[in-house]
């Protein structure tokens, strides 16, 4: 089951049969039976392997095994305007639909399971990161392609698993972050040219958000949010969030950073893995620091969060009430967070099976413990033996003289 959220509607895509249900915020509901192009089976793995698979062996399944598997969708992403929907199935077929007539606009076979899919500003291109830590661009409009091109371009690669991917507001830079504490700022679309690295985090970097043309905020398993002048890779401030969420255990990392501007103020809302609290900060443009305004407890762990029009939608780990929506308002110069109800969310939540599948999938996907790196040294033994060797040599020398 795949859930895609946009500004106007929420889509659920179910398998067997492949049906898209579109819930508009205007409370209209649409049901579309997807016409799928035939499955194209992947060539065997190319020159990259899964970064999580450390032994270097190929982990892809044989075509026979694949043929018996049922087609199901693993990923979906709506474009900003909701004109397009990109979905990816278990055969690594990436299909892009026009959501007006539900016609296939383009389809590609990708090399590895995708982790993040984003549309560029003009919605003519897709940027897709895969499990190998590689990022590809896909051209959606076939008429802009030369004859010998299939629309796929290699953009860049990390040497660790990519945890988030964002395009700058002016689409000139692509920011990507990974398990190795790194944030890379690449020029876009000429991503081979690295503009900078934003280095400072001491654990995996879990999420990113551009707040304006110069500044980027990042969240990490090291317990901090950092503000960067991203083209220079310069850290402007670091903020420790542990106290804001009264963490039950220390394995808490930011899940998503949402930034919006309300009455000329930059408001930053952060949700966290393994936490039921979201925190709202004010970004001070003079000091470039985050200042906490308030922590809000939605009572159940937040599994996924999304913002639009100063509204925050959190999907929470509660079977009976799996969405929690809030609205941000500034009243008399003070920020107010009001709980709001969307009828359409209630309708969505009535589908027990959908809720169950969604929660299960998110619970599994949100496990982050393995991302933490421990630092034990296996090489002490070698150096101890060496020291011994040198000491016996010294003793021998002294004895012989």
């Amino acid at each position: 089951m795949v859930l895609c959220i946009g500004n106007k509607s929420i889509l659920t895509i179910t398998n067997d049969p492949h049906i898209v249900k579109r819930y508009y915020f205007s409370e209209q509901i649409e049901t579309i039976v997807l016409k799928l192009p035939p499955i194209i089976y992947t060539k065997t793995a190319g020159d990259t392997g899964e970064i999580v698979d450390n032994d270097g062996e190929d982990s892809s399944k044989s075509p026979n095994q694949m043929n018996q598997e049922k087609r199901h969708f693993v990923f979906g992403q709506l474009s900003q305007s909701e004109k397009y929907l990109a979905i990816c199935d278990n055969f690594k077929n990436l299909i892009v639909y026009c959501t007006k007539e539900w016609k296939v606009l383009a389809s590609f076979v990708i090399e590895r399971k995708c982790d993040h899919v984003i549309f560029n500003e003009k919605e003519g291109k897709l940027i897709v990161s895969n499990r190998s830590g590689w990022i590809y661009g896909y051209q959606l409009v076939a008429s802009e392609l030369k004859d010998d091109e299939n629309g796929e371009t290699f953009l860049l690669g990390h040497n660790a698993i990519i945890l988030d991917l964002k395009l700058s507001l002016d689409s000139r830079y692509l920011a990507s972050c990974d398990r190795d504490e790194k944030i890379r700022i690449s020029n876009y679309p000429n991503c081979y040219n690295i503009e900078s690295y934003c280095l400072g985090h001491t654990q995996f970097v879990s999420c990113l958000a551009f707040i304006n043309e110069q500044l980027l905020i990042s969240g990490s398993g090291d317990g901090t949010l950092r503000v960067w002048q991203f083209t220079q890779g310069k850290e402007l401030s670091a903020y420790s969030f542990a106290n804001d969420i009264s963490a039950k255990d220390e394995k808490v990392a930011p899940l998503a950073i949402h930034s919006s501007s309300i009455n000329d103020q930059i408001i930053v809302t952060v949700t966290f893995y393994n936490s039921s609290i979201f925190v709202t900060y004010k970004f001070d443009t003079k000091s470039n620091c985050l200042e906490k305004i308030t922590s809000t407890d939605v009572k159940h762990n937040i599994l996924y969060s999304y913002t639009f029009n100063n509204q925050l939608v959190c999907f929470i780990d509660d079977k009976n009430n799996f969405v929690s929506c809030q609205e941000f308002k500034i009243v008399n110069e003070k920020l107010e967070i009001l709980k709001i109800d969307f009828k359409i969310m209630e309708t969505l939540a009535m589908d027990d099976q959908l809720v169950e599948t969604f929660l299960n999938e998110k619970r599994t996907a949100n496990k982050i413990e393995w991302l933490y790196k421990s630092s034990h040294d296996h090489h002490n033994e070698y150096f101890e033996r060496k020291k011994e060797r040198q000491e016996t040599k010294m003793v021998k020398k002294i004895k012989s003289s």
Partner: protein
Amino acid sequence: MATKVIDPPQKRFYRQRAHTNPIADHCFDYPIRPDLMKWNELYPNYDQNGEQVEYLDVGCGYGGLLVTLASVYPDKLSLGMEIRVKVCDYVQDRIKSLRSESPGKYDQIACIRSNAMKYLPNYFHKGQLSKLFFMFPDPHFKKTKHKWRIISKPLLADYAYVLKVGGIVYFGTDVEELYNWMDSHFNEHPLFKQLTEDEISSDAIYSKLFDCTEEGQKVTRAGGKKFLAAYKRVEDPYSR
């Protein structure tokens, strides 16, 4: 004061399995960002007035190229980066011994243990390096292990990032297939351009590269073929 000469290290104490997985988690000590690197612990006369490491030998093995760099470029700081602990330790002991034997001559070379595939941006600022060497890199023949190769599509962007415009990258190998792989990768990358014959003939280190590294000497002894090339870092041709 009479300075004691330290014996050169004996290789037999430093041997280690040839291939290390460069993608797995290892425990490395690396600076969070280049400013935090304590270079003065590596270079005894390191002077903070703008002097920086400019030459980097990636996968330096037993350090033959570093020793040559010290004599060809006595006024430049060169660094060897090696992933295998014992091999790196050997090079460090070798440099210690050389320094004690000929004071002042080897102060500008050093070796650290690190994974060049992951941590170059932690050590070097953008455009800091002017020479980058890849001599006899591990070939990783199996297709599924090509991702372990030190020259690959994604990594070239990092090499271009640490090299200044005009800086040079050198690579050499005795494996023809690997040479073609490396050459085509550099050729296809918009930020690299092959050196011309003229540029090569006026280069002080190019002609010495084959015979100064331990691996190169081994290939010479066995009468094997060798392949070498050099590319220059150029400005991004892309325009909006």
